[in-house]
Protein backbone atom coordinates (compact mmCIF):
# COMPACT_ATOMS: atom_id res chain seq x y z
CA UNK A 1 0.00 0.00 0.00
CA UNK A 2 1.26 3.43 -0.83
CA UNK A 3 2.04 5.64 2.11
CA UNK A 4 -0.17 8.69 2.46
CA UNK A 5 1.78 11.69 1.29
CA UNK A 6 0.96 15.32 1.00
CA UNK A 7 2.76 17.17 -1.73
CA UNK A 8 3.84 20.68 -0.82
CA UNK A 9 3.68 23.22 -3.64
CA UNK A 10 7.44 23.21 -3.86
CA UNK A 11 8.06 19.48 -3.41
CA UNK A 12 10.88 18.56 -5.80
CA UNK A 13 9.95 16.30 -8.68
CA UNK A 14 12.16 13.31 -9.44
CA UNK A 15 14.96 11.82 -7.38
CA UNK A 16 18.72 12.09 -7.33
CA UNK A 17 20.27 9.36 -9.47
CA UNK A 18 23.69 8.04 -8.50
CA UNK A 19 26.52 9.55 -10.48
CA UNK A 20 24.47 12.56 -11.51
CA UNK A 21 25.66 16.01 -10.50
CA UNK A 22 23.97 17.13 -7.26
CA UNK A 23 20.88 19.20 -7.94
CA UNK A 24 19.83 21.61 -5.24
CA UNK A 25 16.18 22.30 -5.67
CA UNK A 26 15.64 25.42 -3.70
CA UNK A 27 12.65 27.62 -3.92
CA UNK A 28 11.06 29.68 -1.25
CA UNK A 29 8.11 28.38 0.81
CA UNK A 30 6.97 30.93 3.38
CA UNK A 31 8.06 34.34 2.17
CA UNK A 32 8.11 37.97 3.15
CA UNK A 33 7.63 40.73 0.59
CA UNK A 34 9.42 44.11 0.33
CA UNK A 35 11.47 45.77 3.06
CA UNK A 36 12.57 49.41 2.98
CA UNK A 37 15.40 51.38 4.53
CA UNK A 38 16.27 55.06 4.44
CA UNK A 39 18.91 57.29 6.00
CA UNK A 40 17.79 60.43 7.85
CA UNK A 41 19.27 63.12 10.04
CA UNK A 42 19.66 61.11 13.27
CA UNK A 43 20.32 57.71 11.73
CA UNK A 44 18.39 55.12 9.78
CA UNK A 45 14.79 54.01 9.54
CA UNK A 46 13.44 50.70 8.24
CA UNK A 47 9.95 49.51 7.39
CA UNK A 48 8.36 46.17 6.56
CA UNK A 49 4.92 44.64 6.75
CA UNK A 50 4.22 41.66 9.02
CA UNK A 51 3.21 39.06 6.47
CA UNK A 52 4.66 35.62 5.89
CA UNK A 53 2.98 34.35 2.69
CA UNK A 54 2.72 30.73 1.63
CA UNK A 55 2.32 31.16 -2.09
CA UNK A 56 -0.78 33.32 -2.44
CA UNK A 57 -1.98 32.35 1.06
CA UNK A 58 -1.63 34.92 3.83
CA UNK A 59 -0.24 32.32 6.20
CA UNK A 60 1.53 34.17 9.03
CA UNK A 61 0.03 37.57 9.74
CA UNK A 62 2.36 38.52 12.57
CA UNK A 63 5.74 37.75 11.01
CA UNK A 64 8.44 40.08 12.31
CA UNK A 65 10.81 40.99 9.50
CA UNK A 66 12.97 43.65 11.17
CA UNK A 67 15.51 42.39 13.67
CA UNK A 68 18.21 43.91 15.82
CA UNK A 69 21.66 42.34 15.60
CA UNK A 70 23.80 43.56 18.45
CA UNK A 71 23.31 47.04 19.87
CA UNK A 72 23.23 49.29 16.77
CA UNK A 73 22.40 47.22 13.70
CA UNK A 74 19.10 46.29 12.09
CA UNK A 75 18.65 43.38 9.71
CA UNK A 76 15.55 43.56 7.48
CA UNK A 77 14.72 40.60 5.27
CA UNK A 78 12.47 39.59 2.45
CA UNK A 79 12.20 36.17 0.86
CA UNK A 80 12.23 32.78 2.53
CA UNK A 81 11.49 32.87 6.26
CA UNK A 82 13.28 29.65 7.17
CA UNK A 83 16.41 30.70 5.27
CA UNK A 84 16.28 33.92 7.26
CA UNK A 85 15.91 32.01 10.51
CA UNK A 86 19.02 30.05 9.59
CA UNK A 87 20.86 33.32 9.00
CA UNK A 88 19.61 34.68 12.32
CA UNK A 89 20.89 31.63 14.19
CA UNK A 90 24.24 31.92 12.45
CA UNK A 91 24.50 35.58 13.41
CA UNK A 92 23.43 34.86 16.99
CA UNK A 93 26.18 32.26 17.21
CA UNK A 94 28.65 34.78 15.80
CA UNK A 95 27.66 37.56 18.21
CA UNK A 96 27.81 35.09 21.10
CA UNK A 97 31.29 33.87 20.27
CA UNK A 98 32.40 37.49 19.95
CA UNK A 99 31.02 38.23 23.45
CA UNK A 100 33.09 35.35 24.81
CA UNK A 101 36.29 37.29 24.11
CA UNK A 102 35.34 39.86 26.77
CA UNK A 103 37.55 42.42 25.02
CA UNK A 104 35.09 45.34 25.17
CA UNK A 105 34.72 45.16 21.42
CA UNK A 106 31.68 44.16 19.40
CA UNK A 107 31.02 43.69 15.72
CA UNK A 108 29.94 46.84 13.91
CA UNK A 109 27.34 47.14 11.18
CA UNK A 110 29.86 46.89 8.34
CA UNK A 111 31.36 43.71 9.76
CA UNK A 112 27.93 42.13 10.18
CA UNK A 113 27.04 43.17 6.63
CA UNK A 114 30.28 41.73 5.32
CA UNK A 115 29.63 38.46 7.15
CA UNK A 116 26.10 38.18 5.74
CA UNK A 117 27.47 38.87 2.26
CA UNK A 118 30.12 36.17 2.70
CA UNK A 119 27.47 33.60 3.58
CA UNK A 120 25.18 34.66 0.72
CA UNK A 121 27.97 34.58 -1.89
CA UNK A 122 29.26 31.26 -0.60
CA UNK A 123 25.80 29.72 -0.92
CA UNK A 124 25.20 31.14 -4.40
CA UNK A 125 28.57 29.71 -5.40
CA UNK A 126 27.36 26.27 -4.26
CA UNK A 127 24.27 26.90 -6.42
CA UNK A 128 22.29 26.41 -3.21
CA UNK A 129 21.33 29.97 -2.35
CA UNK A 130 19.63 31.32 0.73
CA UNK A 131 16.46 32.73 -0.84
CA UNK A 132 16.59 36.19 0.70
CA UNK A 133 17.22 39.85 0.05
CA UNK A 134 18.59 41.76 3.02
CA UNK A 135 18.85 45.39 3.95
CA UNK A 136 21.42 45.79 6.74
CA UNK A 137 21.88 49.14 8.41
CA UNK A 138 23.19 50.77 11.51
CA UNK A 139 25.50 53.26 13.06
CA UNK A 140 29.18 52.46 13.36
CA UNK A 141 31.63 54.88 14.96
CA UNK A 142 28.99 57.62 14.75
CA UNK A 143 28.45 57.18 11.01
CA UNK A 144 25.36 55.72 9.40
CA UNK A 145 25.80 52.76 7.07
CA UNK A 146 23.25 50.87 5.02
CA UNK A 147 23.80 48.07 2.52
CA UNK A 148 21.88 45.54 0.44
CA UNK A 149 22.68 41.86 -0.11
CA UNK A 150 20.68 39.27 -2.00
CA UNK A 151 20.72 35.60 -2.96
CA UNK A 152 23.20 36.31 -5.76
CA UNK A 153 25.67 37.86 -3.33
CA UNK A 154 25.12 41.18 -5.07
CA UNK A 155 25.92 44.07 -2.74
CA UNK A 156 25.47 47.80 -2.92
CA UNK A 157 25.10 50.79 -0.64
CA UNK A 158 22.82 53.81 -0.98
CA UNK A 159 20.91 56.37 1.10
CA UNK A 160 17.66 54.53 0.40
CA UNK A 161 17.28 50.82 -0.24
CA UNK A 162 14.39 48.50 -1.00
CA UNK A 163 13.85 44.84 -1.84
CA UNK A 164 11.26 43.08 -4.00
CA UNK A 165 8.38 45.19 -5.25
CA UNK A 166 9.72 48.03 -3.15
CA UNK A 167 12.54 48.39 -5.72
CA UNK A 168 9.90 49.42 -8.26
CA UNK A 169 7.30 51.15 -6.11
CA UNK A 170 9.03 52.57 -3.04
CA UNK A 171 12.54 53.39 -4.25
CA UNK A 172 11.35 56.24 -6.56
CA UNK A 173 9.38 57.80 -3.68
CA UNK A 174 12.30 57.52 -1.27
CA UNK A 175 14.84 58.82 -3.80
CA UNK A 176 12.61 61.82 -4.53
CA UNK A 177 12.18 62.56 -0.83
CA UNK A 178 15.95 62.47 -0.37
CA UNK A 179 16.66 64.59 -3.46
CA UNK A 180 14.11 67.23 -2.42
CA UNK A 181 15.78 67.62 0.97
CA UNK A 182 19.31 67.06 -0.33
CA UNK A 183 19.62 63.86 1.66
CA UNK A 184 18.79 65.44 5.01
CA UNK A 185 15.39 64.20 6.14
CA UNK A 186 13.94 64.79 9.57
CA UNK A 187 12.59 61.85 11.51
CA UNK A 188 9.01 62.86 10.57
CA UNK A 189 9.88 63.15 6.88
CA UNK A 190 11.58 59.75 6.90
CA UNK A 191 8.65 58.12 8.65
CA UNK A 192 6.24 59.85 6.28
CA UNK A 193 7.92 58.61 3.10
CA UNK A 194 8.19 55.08 4.51
CA UNK A 195 4.49 55.02 5.40
CA UNK A 196 3.51 56.38 1.99
CA UNK A 197 5.67 53.69 0.40
CA UNK A 198 4.13 50.95 2.55
CA UNK A 199 0.69 52.18 1.58
CA UNK A 200 1.49 52.08 -2.14
CA UNK A 201 2.89 48.59 -1.64
CA UNK A 202 -0.27 47.55 0.18
CA UNK A 203 -2.39 48.84 -2.69
CA UNK A 204 -0.35 47.28 -5.48
CA UNK A 205 1.56 44.27 -4.08
CA UNK A 206 -0.86 41.36 -3.59
CA UNK A 207 1.53 39.72 -1.12
CA UNK A 208 1.47 42.56 1.37
CA UNK A 209 -0.38 43.37 4.57
CA UNK A 210 -1.70 46.48 6.28
CA UNK A 211 0.19 45.62 9.45
CA UNK A 212 3.73 46.94 9.62
CA UNK A 213 6.72 47.64 11.82
CA UNK A 214 9.16 50.54 11.76
CA UNK A 215 12.68 50.22 13.13
CA UNK A 216 15.03 53.04 13.99
CA UNK A 217 18.75 53.09 14.60
CA UNK A 218 20.15 56.25 16.18
CA UNK A 219 23.10 57.03 18.42
CA UNK A 220 20.89 55.79 21.27
CA UNK A 221 20.56 52.30 19.78
CA UNK A 222 17.85 50.26 18.09
CA UNK A 223 14.10 50.59 18.58
CA UNK A 224 11.61 48.41 16.74
CA UNK A 225 7.94 49.37 16.92
CA UNK A 226 5.16 46.95 17.72
CA UNK A 227 3.13 45.78 14.71
CA UNK A 228 0.93 48.73 13.77
CA UNK A 229 -2.15 49.02 11.60
CA UNK A 230 -1.70 50.87 8.29
CA UNK A 231 -4.63 53.04 7.20
CA UNK A 232 -5.75 52.85 3.59
CA UNK A 233 -8.62 54.11 1.46
CA UNK A 234 -10.65 51.83 -0.80
CA UNK A 235 -13.88 53.86 -1.13
CA UNK A 236 -12.79 55.28 -4.49
CA UNK A 237 -13.47 51.82 -5.93
CA UNK A 238 -17.19 52.62 -5.89
CA UNK A 239 -16.71 55.35 -8.48
CA UNK A 240 -14.70 53.27 -10.90
CA UNK A 241 -16.71 52.32 -13.95
CA UNK A 242 -15.88 50.06 -16.82
CA UNK A 243 -14.66 46.95 -15.02
CA UNK A 244 -17.95 45.08 -15.18
CA UNK A 245 -19.84 47.54 -12.96
Amino acid sequence: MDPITYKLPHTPQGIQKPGEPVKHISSPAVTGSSVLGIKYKDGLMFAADCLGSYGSMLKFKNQHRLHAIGKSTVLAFSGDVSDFQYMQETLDELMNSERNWEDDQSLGTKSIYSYIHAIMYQRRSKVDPLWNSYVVGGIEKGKPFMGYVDLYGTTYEADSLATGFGKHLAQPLMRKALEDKEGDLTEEEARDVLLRSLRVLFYRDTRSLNLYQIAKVTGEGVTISDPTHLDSEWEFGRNIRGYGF
Partner: protein
Amino acid sequence: MTSVGTGYDISSSTYSTEGRIYQVEYATQAANSFGTSIGMKVNNGVILGSVSRKISKLLKPASNKCISHVDKHIGIATTGWTADAREILNIARREAENYRSSYKIPPPTTQVVQRLGFYIHAHTLYSSVRPFGVNSIIGGKDDNGYHLHMIEPSGEHWGYRGCVVGKGQKEVKTELERIDLDNIDPTLAVNRMVKMLLKAHRDSEKEEPYHMEISWVTEETNGYHERVPQNIIDDAINQFENEGHEGEGEGADEAQETMEVE
Protein backbone atom coordinates in the same frame (compact mmCIF):
# COMPACT_ATOMS: atom_id res chain seq x y z
CA MET B 1 53.45 6.58 47.66
CA THR B 2 53.12 2.83 48.06
CA SER B 3 52.14 2.24 44.49
CA VAL B 4 55.03 4.00 42.84
CA GLY B 5 57.15 1.45 41.07
CA THR B 6 54.47 -1.20 40.99
CA GLY B 7 53.47 -0.11 37.48
CA TYR B 8 49.86 0.67 38.32
CA ASP B 9 50.34 4.41 38.20
CA ILE B 10 51.44 4.86 34.62
CA SER B 11 48.11 4.46 32.88
CA SER B 12 44.61 5.57 33.75
CA SER B 13 43.22 2.54 31.92
CA THR B 14 44.32 0.17 34.67
CA TYR B 15 43.16 -0.02 38.29
CA SER B 16 45.68 -0.68 41.01
CA THR B 17 45.16 -3.79 43.12
CA GLU B 18 43.45 -1.63 45.74
CA GLY B 19 41.00 -0.39 43.11
CA ARG B 20 42.50 3.04 42.59
CA ILE B 21 43.35 4.88 39.40
CA TYR B 22 46.55 6.70 40.22
CA GLN B 23 46.72 8.80 37.08
CA VAL B 24 43.38 10.34 38.00
CA GLU B 25 44.56 10.95 41.53
CA TYR B 26 47.69 12.64 40.26
CA ALA B 27 45.58 14.82 37.97
CA THR B 28 43.45 15.78 40.95
CA GLN B 29 46.54 16.68 42.90
CA ALA B 30 47.77 18.82 40.00
CA ALA B 31 44.41 20.55 39.71
CA ASN B 32 44.37 21.36 43.42
CA SER B 33 47.80 22.92 43.57
CA PHE B 34 47.01 26.20 41.79
CA GLY B 35 45.06 28.92 43.60
CA THR B 36 41.54 28.57 44.97
CA SER B 37 38.12 28.72 43.31
CA ILE B 38 34.75 29.08 45.00
CA GLY B 39 31.18 28.72 43.79
CA MET B 40 28.14 29.91 45.73
CA LYS B 41 24.49 29.40 44.86
CA VAL B 42 22.65 32.05 46.82
CA ASN B 43 19.30 33.80 47.02
CA ASN B 44 18.54 34.78 43.39
CA GLY B 45 21.99 34.27 42.02
CA VAL B 46 25.04 32.17 41.54
CA ILE B 47 28.60 33.44 42.03
CA LEU B 48 31.94 32.20 40.83
CA GLY B 49 35.25 33.35 42.24
CA SER B 50 38.87 32.52 41.76
CA VAL B 51 42.21 33.63 43.17
CA SER B 52 45.68 32.65 42.17
CA ARG B 53 49.24 33.81 42.69
CA LYS B 54 50.37 36.34 40.12
CA ILE B 55 53.27 34.48 38.56
CA SER B 56 55.02 37.57 37.25
CA LYS B 57 54.84 41.33 37.52
CA LEU B 58 55.35 41.45 33.77
CA LEU B 59 52.05 39.73 32.99
CA LYS B 60 49.45 41.74 31.13
CA PRO B 61 46.39 41.98 33.38
CA ALA B 62 43.52 39.69 32.41
CA SER B 63 45.46 38.07 29.57
CA ASN B 64 44.88 34.61 30.94
CA LYS B 65 41.53 34.46 32.61
CA CYS B 66 40.28 31.63 34.77
CA ILE B 67 36.63 32.69 34.61
CA SER B 68 34.92 32.73 31.21
CA HIS B 69 31.54 32.76 29.49
CA VAL B 70 30.30 29.39 28.32
CA ASP B 71 27.09 30.86 26.97
CA LYS B 72 25.08 34.01 27.62
CA HIS B 73 23.82 32.69 30.96
CA ILE B 74 26.49 30.16 31.96
CA GLY B 75 29.93 30.82 33.39
CA ILE B 76 32.86 28.61 34.27
CA ALA B 77 35.68 29.00 36.79
CA THR B 78 38.65 26.70 36.37
CA THR B 79 41.67 25.87 38.49
CA GLY B 80 44.59 23.75 37.41
CA TRP B 81 46.58 23.63 34.19
CA THR B 82 45.46 26.64 32.19
CA ALA B 83 46.09 24.97 28.84
CA ASP B 84 43.89 22.05 29.87
CA ALA B 85 41.31 24.55 31.10
CA ARG B 86 41.28 26.18 27.68
CA GLU B 87 40.35 22.86 26.09
CA ILE B 88 37.59 22.32 28.63
CA LEU B 89 36.26 25.81 27.97
CA ASN B 90 36.20 25.20 24.22
CA ILE B 91 34.31 21.95 24.68
CA ALA B 92 31.84 23.61 27.06
CA ARG B 93 31.19 26.37 24.52
CA ARG B 94 30.86 23.88 21.70
CA GLU B 95 28.33 21.81 23.63
CA ALA B 96 26.33 24.90 24.59
CA GLU B 97 26.30 26.09 20.98
CA ASN B 98 25.28 22.65 19.69
CA TYR B 99 22.45 22.51 22.20
CA ARG B 100 21.28 25.94 21.08
CA SER B 101 21.30 25.10 17.39
CA SER B 102 19.47 21.81 18.00
CA TYR B 103 16.75 23.08 20.28
CA LYS B 104 16.68 26.86 19.74
CA ILE B 105 16.59 27.49 23.51
CA PRO B 106 19.33 28.45 25.94
CA PRO B 107 21.12 25.28 27.06
CA PRO B 108 20.22 24.20 30.63
CA THR B 109 23.26 24.32 32.90
CA THR B 110 22.91 20.66 33.86
CA GLN B 111 23.03 19.61 30.19
CA VAL B 112 26.29 21.42 29.61
CA VAL B 113 27.71 19.99 32.84
CA GLN B 114 26.70 16.45 31.92
CA ARG B 115 28.19 16.66 28.44
CA LEU B 116 31.36 18.22 29.76
CA GLY B 117 31.57 15.65 32.55
CA PHE B 118 31.22 12.89 29.99
CA TYR B 119 34.07 14.33 27.95
CA ILE B 120 36.36 14.71 30.96
CA HIS B 121 35.50 11.21 32.16
CA ALA B 122 36.30 9.80 28.70
CA HIS B 123 39.84 11.08 29.24
CA THR B 124 40.24 8.76 32.23
CA LEU B 125 39.49 5.59 30.28
CA TYR B 126 42.34 5.24 27.84
CA SER B 127 46.05 4.81 28.19
CA SER B 128 46.54 6.99 25.12
CA VAL B 129 45.31 10.16 26.80
CA ARG B 130 46.13 12.11 29.91
CA PRO B 131 43.31 13.08 32.29
CA PHE B 132 42.60 16.80 32.58
CA GLY B 133 44.43 18.52 35.41
CA VAL B 134 41.53 20.88 35.96
CA ASN B 135 38.66 21.42 38.36
CA SER B 136 35.73 23.25 36.81
CA ILE B 137 33.04 25.12 38.70
CA ILE B 138 30.07 25.90 36.50
CA GLY B 139 27.27 28.29 37.38
CA GLY B 140 24.28 29.32 35.35
CA LYS B 141 20.62 30.11 35.13
CA ASP B 142 17.81 28.44 33.22
CA ASP B 143 14.07 27.82 33.48
CA ASN B 144 14.63 25.76 36.63
CA GLY B 145 16.50 28.54 38.38
CA TYR B 146 20.13 28.91 39.34
CA HIS B 147 22.57 26.06 39.24
CA LEU B 148 26.05 25.37 40.55
CA HIS B 149 28.11 22.32 39.64
CA MET B 150 31.67 21.18 39.99
CA ILE B 151 33.45 18.69 37.72
CA GLU B 152 36.59 16.97 38.99
CA PRO B 153 39.40 15.52 36.86
CA SER B 154 37.77 12.09 37.23
CA GLY B 155 34.73 13.39 35.37
CA GLU B 156 32.71 13.09 38.54
CA HIS B 157 30.30 15.97 38.98
CA TRP B 158 27.81 17.04 41.61
CA GLY B 159 25.41 19.89 42.02
CA TYR B 160 26.26 22.18 44.95
CA ARG B 161 24.93 25.06 47.05
CA GLY B 162 28.50 26.03 47.78
CA CYS B 163 31.73 24.50 46.61
CA VAL B 164 35.43 25.20 46.79
CA VAL B 165 38.50 23.69 45.23
CA GLY B 166 42.22 24.37 45.33
CA LYS B 167 44.80 25.23 47.94
CA GLY B 168 42.48 26.82 50.46
CA GLN B 169 39.85 24.08 50.12
CA LYS B 170 39.69 22.98 53.76
CA GLU B 171 39.33 26.34 55.46
CA VAL B 172 36.94 27.80 52.92
CA LYS B 173 34.72 24.73 53.06
CA THR B 174 34.31 25.14 56.82
CA GLU B 175 33.44 28.77 56.35
CA LEU B 176 31.05 28.12 53.45
CA GLU B 177 29.15 25.68 55.63
CA ARG B 178 28.64 28.45 58.18
CA ILE B 179 26.95 30.74 55.63
CA ASP B 180 23.19 30.62 55.12
CA LEU B 181 23.59 30.25 51.35
CA ASP B 182 19.88 30.02 50.52
CA ASN B 183 19.12 33.39 52.07
CA ILE B 184 22.22 35.49 51.54
CA ASP B 185 21.94 38.12 48.78
CA PRO B 186 24.38 38.10 45.85
CA THR B 187 26.13 41.38 46.76
CA LEU B 188 26.75 40.32 50.34
CA ALA B 189 27.79 36.88 49.12
CA VAL B 190 30.37 38.47 46.81
CA ASN B 191 31.72 40.36 49.83
CA ARG B 192 32.08 37.12 51.76
CA MET B 193 33.59 35.33 48.78
CA VAL B 194 36.26 37.98 48.22
CA LYS B 195 37.29 37.73 51.86
CA MET B 196 37.39 33.93 51.77
CA LEU B 197 39.49 33.98 48.60
CA LEU B 198 41.88 36.53 50.02
CA LYS B 199 42.27 34.60 53.23
CA ALA B 200 42.88 31.40 51.29
CA HIS B 201 45.54 33.20 49.28
CA ARG B 202 47.27 34.71 52.31
CA ASP B 203 47.23 31.37 54.15
CA SER B 204 49.23 29.63 51.45
CA GLU B 205 51.02 32.40 49.55
CA LYS B 206 51.56 35.03 52.30
CA GLU B 207 52.02 38.51 50.82
CA GLU B 208 52.58 37.36 47.23
CA PRO B 209 50.67 39.47 44.70
CA TYR B 210 47.46 37.81 43.58
CA HIS B 211 45.04 37.74 40.68
CA MET B 212 41.34 37.60 41.54
CA GLU B 213 38.26 37.20 39.37
CA ILE B 214 34.61 37.22 40.44
CA SER B 215 31.57 36.75 38.22
CA TRP B 216 27.88 36.17 38.74
CA VAL B 217 24.54 35.39 37.24
CA THR B 218 21.79 37.27 39.07
CA GLU B 219 18.46 39.04 38.60
CA GLU B 220 20.41 42.31 38.24
CA THR B 221 22.36 40.95 35.25
CA ASN B 222 19.09 39.80 33.66
CA GLY B 223 20.20 36.22 33.94
CA TYR B 224 23.41 36.89 32.00
CA HIS B 225 26.80 35.73 33.18
CA GLU B 226 28.80 38.87 33.85
CA ARG B 227 31.84 40.02 35.77
CA VAL B 228 31.13 41.61 39.14
CA PRO B 229 31.85 45.38 39.00
CA GLN B 230 35.35 46.09 40.28
CA ASN B 231 34.18 48.57 42.95
CA ILE B 232 32.20 45.86 44.77
CA ILE B 233 35.31 43.66 44.82
CA ASP B 234 37.55 46.56 45.89
CA ASP B 235 35.21 47.44 48.78
CA ALA B 236 35.44 43.88 50.07
CA ILE B 237 39.22 43.86 49.69
CA ASN B 238 39.49 47.13 51.64
CA GLN B 239 37.23 45.81 54.39
CA PHE B 240 39.34 42.66 54.57
CA GLU B 241 42.58 44.61 54.81
CA ASN B 242 41.18 46.94 57.50
CA GLU B 243 39.64 44.18 59.60
CA GLY B 244 43.01 42.45 59.79
CA HIS B 245 43.21 38.84 58.91
CA GLU B 246 45.70 37.23 61.24
CA GLY B 247 43.24 35.94 63.79
CA GLU B 248 40.45 33.46 63.33
CA GLY B 249 37.97 36.15 64.28
CA GLU B 250 37.91 37.52 60.74
CA GLY B 251 34.40 38.22 59.57
CA ALA B 252 33.11 36.91 62.88
CA ASP B 253 30.32 39.49 63.13
CA GLU B 254 28.78 38.54 59.86
CA ALA B 255 29.27 34.88 60.53
CA GLN B 256 27.34 35.28 63.74
CA GLU B 257 24.57 37.09 61.95
CA THR B 258 24.14 34.24 59.51
CA MET B 259 24.40 31.74 62.33
CA GLU B 260 21.46 33.42 63.97
CA VAL B 261 19.43 33.15 60.78
CA GLU B 262 20.19 29.47 60.69
